[in-house]
Each structure stands twice: as C-alpha cells, then as structure tokens.
C-alpha cells in the first residue's frame, strides 16, 4: 500500500462510507426523528403563510447565528425555564433546520409562549427598549411586511396545549413561563 495511491484511496473511501452509513444513512430509518410530533405538526406551515414567510426572514437575517431552537433535558435548560424538552419529531418540517449552535441570545424553541406580538415587534425594532443591556442589533431596517411575518413566525413557536400541561406537571411548575 505504501506504493499504491489507488489502494490508499480505496481504503480511505471505504472508511468514509462506514462513517456515512453509521451517522447519516442509519438515522434515516429511525422513527423518532422522522415522524412528526403533534407540536412538530404545528410547524408545518402552509406555503406562503405569514409564518412560512417569517421563517424566511428569520433565516435571511441570520437569527440562527445567535439563537438556538434546541431544548435539552439538562439543568442549564430547565433552570432557564426554556419549556418542554425538544424531541426529534418536533423538527420533522424544520427544513432547513434551525437548531443552532450558539446562545449569544436565548433559546427560541418555544418563544411563542413567552411574549405577545407587541412586545416582539417592539423588541425587533429597538431591542434595548424591552431588554436593557441586550446586545441584539436592531432590525428596524426590515419592512413592515417583513416585521409582521417575522412576528407571526416567532409567535407560532409553541408546543401543543397537552405537551405544555405535561411539561408543567413534570417540573411541577404552576407559574407561567416567563424568561424575562
């Protein structure tokens, strides 16, 4: 093999294929991530609905670079009151996925539970007016239509009532979710 580049390439290709099979192909057959939960169904927005357009605005403006949509069953997330732990099926229709990797800002998985439309709109236009000290840039350059759509999308990020009740029972939390 120390003399045959083709042999090196073939073995390298085989090893690569194993990794793809294990971490990319096999998951295709996993029900847990490939069938939608009831809350996941809520994110199956009709084409050209305000929520679907708002999701585009979210992506185009790079919201996902600072905000995750990814709640874990861990103290860091439960103590931050992030809401129900997210499941694979919640993301069935989340394409391109918006899981995110960095929380420069808070998680937005269930942000629709936490504020109303007016707050969201005000916060997008002037973040420091609702959250003093925030380092979120202002999105006042968006058109009214874009802002409406984006707010509609953010407000849609909610679990079903049952999921929420179940969660509240689980963590024995009677107070409403408010993440300042």
């Amino acid at each position, binding site marked *: 093999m120390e003399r*045959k580049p083709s042999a090196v390439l073939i073995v390298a290709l085989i090893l690569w294929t194993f990794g793809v099979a294990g971490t990319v192909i096999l998951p295709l057959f996993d029900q847990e991530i490939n069938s939608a939960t009831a809350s996941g169904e809520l994110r199956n927005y009709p084409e050209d609905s305000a929520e679907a357009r708002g999701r585009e605005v979210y992506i185009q403006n790079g919201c996902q670079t600072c905000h995750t949509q990814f709640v874990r069953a861990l103290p860091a997330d439960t103590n931050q009151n992030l809401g129900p732990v997210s499941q694979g099926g919640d*993301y069935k229709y989340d394409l391109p996925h918006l899981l995110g990797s960095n929380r420069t800002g808070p998680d937005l998985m269930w942000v629709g539970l936490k504020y109303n439309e007016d707050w969201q709109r005000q916060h997008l236009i002037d973040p420091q007016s609702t959250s003093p000290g925030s*380092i979120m840039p202002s999105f006042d350059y968006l058109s009214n239509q874009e802002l409406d759509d984006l707010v509609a999308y953010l407000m849609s990020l909610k679990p079903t009532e049952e999921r929420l009740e179940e969660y509240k029972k689980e963590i024995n939390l009677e107070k409403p979710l408010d993440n300042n």
Partner: protein
Amino acid sequence: MFTDEKWSSSKNWFIAAVFWIIIGMSMGLLTATKQIWPELLNNRWTTYGHVRSAHVMLVIYAWLSMAYVGSMFYMIPKLAKTKVYSEKLGNFALVFYNIVILEGFFALLFGQTEVIEYGEFPLWVDVQLLVAIGLVAYNLFKTVGQRTEKMLYVSLWYFLGSLLWLPLTWIVGNFPAQWIPSGVQQGLMGWFLGHNAIGLWMTTVGVGQIYYLLPKLTGRPLYSHQLSMIGFWAIATFYVWNGPHHLMNGPIPGWISKAGVIPSIVLLIPVWAVLANFWGTMKGSWAQTRTSVPLRFTMAGTIFYLFACLQGPLQALPSVSSVIKFTHWTVGHAHMGPFGAFSFTSFAAIYYILPKIVGREMFSKRAMEAHFWFSTVGFLVFAFSLWIAGVVQGFAWIEGVPFLQTVLMMEPYVQGRAIGGTMMYVAQFFLAWNMYKTIKLAKLEKKQQAQQQAATA
C-alpha cells in the same frame, strides 16, 4: 492566458490565500466588535448574522483552503519527484475558485444562506465550488500518477485522502433540504460536514503539511514510519463518526449519540500517535525554534493541535457538554484548530515554500517575528477570554441566572476577545506586507541579474 511557469500555481494560491485572510478576519473582527456595539454597521447587508457567516466561510474555504492548495501544489510534486501535472489548470482553478468564493461572499451578505454551519453558501455556489475542488483534486491526483518516486511518503497519504474526502463530505452536508425527510436528519448531515470539514480536510492536510515541514526544517528524518501509519488510519477510521456529538443531549436517539461520542474519545489514539511522531522527530532540535520562525510556527501549531484535541474528546463527554455547549467556550475551541493549529502550519508552509519558489529569502525576519508573536499572544488572549466566559456563562445558566443578566456578565470577556482578535488581525498585515516585499524584490533582482548577464555576455 494562464501561465505555465514552474511553481506558479503554488505561489498564486498563496497570494490569494493571504488576500482572503485579511478579508475573512476583518469579518471576524467586525463580528466580535458588534457584540460590544450592536449598532455598528448594522443594516440589511452587514447585519451581525451575515458578517459572522461570511467570516466562518471565508477563513475556512478562502484563506485556509487556498493556503492548503498552495502548499499541496508544491509539496505533492516534490514528494512525487515530478512536476505539477498542469500549472495552467492550477492557475485556471485558482481564478475559478476565487470567483466562486466571491459569489458565496456576496450571497451571504445578501441573506442567502443554507444555514448549515461550515456549509452556508447557497446551493448554486456549492455546486460551483465542488467543480473547483474537483479540478484541483484531478490536477493533484494526476501529479501523483506521474510520480518517479515509488514510495508514498506519509504526507502524500494525508493529501490524497483529504482531496478525496472533502468533495464527498461537501456533497453530504450540502444536500438540498427539500430532499431530506426531517430537520434532525439534515442536522446530522450538516454536522457530518461541519465536523469533517475539520476532521478530514483541515486536520488531515494540516498534519500532512507538518509531516513534510518537520524533516525539512530540522534536517532530521521522521521519528517513526510505523506511528505515522497508525495515526493516519486511525484518523481515517474514527474522525468520520464525530458529527452527531454536535447534537448531543439533544433531539437525537441515544444510539446515534453514542455512535458519535465514542469515536470522539477514541480519537485520542491518532492524536497521540501523530504528536508522538512529531515530537520524536523534534528531539534535540527544539533550540532551533529560537531562530527559525517557520519551525516555531510549526511547533506552536502542534501544541495548539494537542490542546484542541484534548478539548475535543473532553467536550464530547455528555457531562462536560452539558455545561459548555452553546456558550462562548465553543467559539474559543472552534478557533484553536483552524487558527492556532492549522493557520500556524500554513504560515510555516508559506515561509518555507515561498523563498524556494521566488529564489530569495523572506524580505524581513522582524516582520516574521512580529507575525508570530502577535498571532500567538493575540490568540491566547482571545481564546482564554472565551474559555473563561464559557465556563462562567455555563454555570450561570445552570444556576438559573436570568439570561439577560448572563449577557451583561460576559461584557469584559467579550471585550477581551475583541482585543485578542485585533492582535490576531494586525499580525496578518505583517505576513501580507512581507510577502509583497519578498515577491517584488525577487522580481527586481531577477531582472537585474538578467541585465548584468546581458551586459557581461
């Protein structure tokens, strides 16, 4: 139209790479500064999200990848004892590659993104970039094909593997979203690219560079051929499996998580094999790092590589991940491999190769020293700010400190990061200036020589 001059591909890829490190790092510095002054240059085009994406994509696929290709256009023919298959094609691929990068850069500024980290360019750019990478790989495979040296030195293994893996991995990660059955599935595919752009391209070409440079710079043979084989095959076997750890503790089934975490820890084996080999080769040569800047860059690179690879498996432990995931820590870690380890080895490669190509020493030794110290000290300030910030932030979240308050707590660290980042950025101007001067003087000297020869003849 495209020059056929010997080593012109290598030289031109290097020049383009250094141009892009300046652009790519200005985007990085702007990102860091926006975390202090959010309204700085905030508009539809250069809003935070766009600038951050552009930074990531440019430093990886413009700066580092072009520096890698530049290195390979020199190292591969040297190791194969032949010439580049086609310098013309190499130069053509460079122009094409740069046009594609420029398209991707503007696409990101206009808000077109695929969201996938390390694969954010939109599909129409991805396809073109794949063709450009294919042209480079074809040219270099052909070069190996016409070799006159029968033995394949270990660097060649790494280069061949990387040139095969990058395009394949690129396809998996950038697979069109509408053909993927679910968001988490796409997450797994995206992180397959996210991790293997590092594992099977940045790491493997970088390690190949070090294997080439060390014996050249120290004048000593490689410590162990056996170890280099173990290291290569262990990386090839285990790195591919690392993607899922990016979704750890998250919405993936337990078995996928384990399939990602275990190989991440096993990776300690190749890292040990590779580093033992590097440092074994260095035995008795460490004093040379005082005088040789390329050697010092290489060794600093190996040390940062070690730390990145100690952090990696540690971070893949679910307990550690539960504290530092999503914090500033990750950003610090994400810079150690690409900047601390492999940008450093690429700097070393440029300082070693460029003088050989243009036929004259680097113009300024002092500029090289400044480049090294600003890069190193800047990176340490940058990284430690982020690591400390990450741990503080992680525990504050666990304690249930309100989120906004944790943002305020981060202020001094975010400033520290920007200061370190400024130093890292300034350092690159020493590189660019030194390169410019060297190439210009070399041209001048050649002309004078030719004139003298003409006069005496």
